[in-house]
């Protein structure tokens, strides 16, 4: 082999390593299906962080109004209708007949004696909000009644948006759900919370610091947030509508489009609010995933159906064109041959594998990795089981489906991500098939996907005769490692 070719091959491999390293420098995975998956030291690796549904899920609600005019002005939406709306938002999820979810309003907020916040109190200031959330630092022990102390899951009404202002959040923030406490051994969520910005319901829209949403838009936004509260991640279906909207192209949302757009789509409002359009609030994808995460067992209680009687599973792995190398971060869609725009469920390949698995070789003690002694400890969440790379499972109602793949939209990053690869990368190839996959209740159908037109694997040109130069690296523990492999 010529020296030039050797140099080219070496450069190619170094470049590939650099690209691979770059791609691994990503935050923890917030994937389609589950929001967060357990990893080393954070729950059970590869298992979604979820509530213990056998114990029921309870939340507690602020005693103040949901919305009032600016500067503590007149009440626009009082506490009772606010609570009714919150209960209805949660009920959208608990009403899914195949989801083993019992979600209950346990009453008013618990007292935080250390901060003199009374039982059943009205959160009106940033200090009170932070008291209810509890001390987040690992050094301090949070109040046991607080959210971070695992004592309660608060739903807070910031009636005039003043808490958002005090926290330095811009006026376009409608609200957010937040994680509080979970068991690092079982991966079970113990407490979570949400805060709703009532300024979006005060009847004022000045187009600069006070915006307005319709009741249905506001309710849908927080039903989405409560999906996160329950441990559900984002889903991408009917993306073409978002792309048309972003590209300024005309489009309409048919009833099927609106119904098929998941509540857990990262962007709300591409189609009209579901309640406004008169379609079910929980889409087929949402119902499938909440049921997959919280399945009703074989002996369902009254009013519920077992997951296995109502769903089957399409499972497989997405591969490069070589049919061997698995691909992370590809969105896979199963569309029913009957009403494909409405009846569709999606998953992201490798959604249980860590976005950044880290590199223990760079740790001073690889068997005891810590952030202080490792150059790249990786994400606390997500499995390191290599068999999960490129793997997917899609829960679907029985029927016939066509399978397609697509890239995750490049703008779905950070809090709007739905892939272990955040920032998402374009799918390295395409897949199209007119073949149908038949799914039966309780059955599992395997469907592996080999993408067409992908680049070759990075070592596809590697020759057994190539010996990579040994490059010594000075590492913190003064040991020397070598990039490349020695070949005799």
């Amino acid at each position: 082999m010529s020296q030039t070719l050797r140099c080219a091959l070496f450069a190619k491999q170094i470049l590939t390593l650099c690209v691979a390293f770059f791609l691994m420098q990503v935050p923890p995975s917030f994937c389609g299906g589950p929001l967060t998956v357990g990893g080393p030291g954070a729950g059970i690796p590869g298992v979604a962080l979820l509530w213990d549904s056998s114990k029921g899920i309870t939340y507690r609600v602020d005693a103040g109004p949901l919305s009032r005019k600016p500067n503590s002005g007149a009440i626009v939406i009082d506490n009772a209708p606010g609570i009714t709306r919150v209960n209805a938002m949660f009920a959208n999820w608990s009403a899914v007949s195949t989801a083993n979810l019992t979600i209950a309003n346990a009453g008013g907020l618990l007292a935080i004696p250390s901060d003199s916040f009374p039982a059943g109190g009205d959160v009106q200031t940033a200090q009170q909000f932070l008291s209810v959330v509890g001390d987040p630092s690992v050094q301090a022990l949070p109040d046991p009644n607080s959210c971070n102390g695992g004592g309660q899951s608060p739903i807070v009404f910031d009636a005039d948006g003043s808490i958002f202002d005090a926290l330095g959040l811009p006026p376009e923030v409608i609200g957010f759900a937040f994680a509080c406490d979970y068991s690092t051994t079982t991966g079970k969520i113990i407490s979570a919370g949400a805060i709703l910005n009532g300024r979006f319901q005060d009847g004022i829209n000045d187009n600069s610091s006070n915006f307005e949403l319709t009741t249905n838009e506001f309710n849908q936004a927080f039903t989405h947030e409560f999906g996160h509260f329950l441990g559900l991640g984002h889903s991408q279906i009917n993306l073409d509508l978002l792309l048309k909207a972003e590209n300024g192209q005309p489009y309409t949302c048919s009833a099927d489009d609106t119904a098929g757009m998941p509540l857990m789509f990262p962007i709300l409002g591409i189609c009209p609010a579901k309640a406004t359009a008169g379609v079910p609030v929980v889409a087929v994808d949402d119902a499938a995933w909440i049921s997959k995460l919280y399945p009703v067992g074989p002996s369902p209680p009254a009013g519920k159906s077992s997951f296995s009687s109502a769903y089957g599973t399409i499972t497989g792995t997405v591969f490069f064109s070589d049919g061997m190398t698995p691909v992370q971060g590809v969105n896979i869609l199963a569309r029913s041959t009957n009403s494909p725009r409405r009846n569709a469920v999606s998953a992201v390949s490798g959604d249980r594998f860590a976005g950044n698995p880290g590199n223990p070789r760079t740790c001073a003690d690889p068997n005891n990795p810590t952030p202080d002694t490792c150059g790249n400890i990786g994400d606390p969440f997500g499995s390191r089981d290599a068999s999960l790379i490129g793997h997917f499972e899609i829960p679907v109602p029985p029927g016939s489906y066509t399978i397609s793949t697509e890239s995750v939209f490049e703008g779905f990053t950070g809090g709007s991500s739905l892939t272990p690869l955040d920032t998402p990368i374009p799918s390295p190839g395409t897949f199209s098939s007119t073949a149908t996959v038949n799914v039966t209740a309780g059955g599992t159908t395997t469907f592996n996907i080999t993408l067409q037109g992908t680049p070759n694997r990075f070592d596809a040109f590697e020759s057994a005769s190539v010996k990579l130069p040994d490059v010594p690296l000075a590492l913190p523990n003064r040991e020397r490692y070598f990039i490349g492999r020695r070949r005799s």
Partner: protein
Amino acid sequence: MRPSPAVIFLRLCRFLPRVGALLPLFCSLVLVCPVYSQSNAVTLPRNLEQLVSESDSIVQGRVTSVSLEPHPQLSKLLMVVVTVQVEETLKGQNASTYTFHQAVIDKRDQQQKMGYHAGQHLLLAMIRPSAYGLNSPAGVQQGRFEISSGPDGKARAINGFANAGLFRGMDSQLKAVRSQLSPKTVEMFDQQKSGPLALEDLKTLIRTLTLEKTSP
């Protein structure tokens, strides 16, 4: 200033001269505001004009330090303290460094320090600090642009929503600076594409918008 719904309506309806009876239905559908979920917050979308208008400071620079610290007054709040070595100030007071304090509520954000790290090259459009000295990028992730080198070696910028919708409803402002921008950026305007934007073009637009706001 955000265009009024009537203006947006007219702009959108321009695209649909032949739709006839479906026009009102179409326009009523697309007028529903998209709502972005960013960094655990559900947030209304902002275009560049709105981001600039809402900002108190717009700086370009490199992050030199990031730390998680307790808030001095709000004892149960952790905040990420970010210091940027300023390369250019596009809005607000000139200074060699810019430090801001952003509230962190979610434990996962705490672990990731809101995604900031030393060495990051950013263009930040930051809102005015609150009474507690806390602030965030305008539009949360939308006002935070990561700067990197493009394939042509030139600097480019992309925000937390891949610049999607960044030029929505900005026809008049874009006309005024069209000749100063690269063909690719003009194409992004015309086709409302998402994706990285030439940094110099982004700054040209910000300067123009900033001047508009300060002119009598």
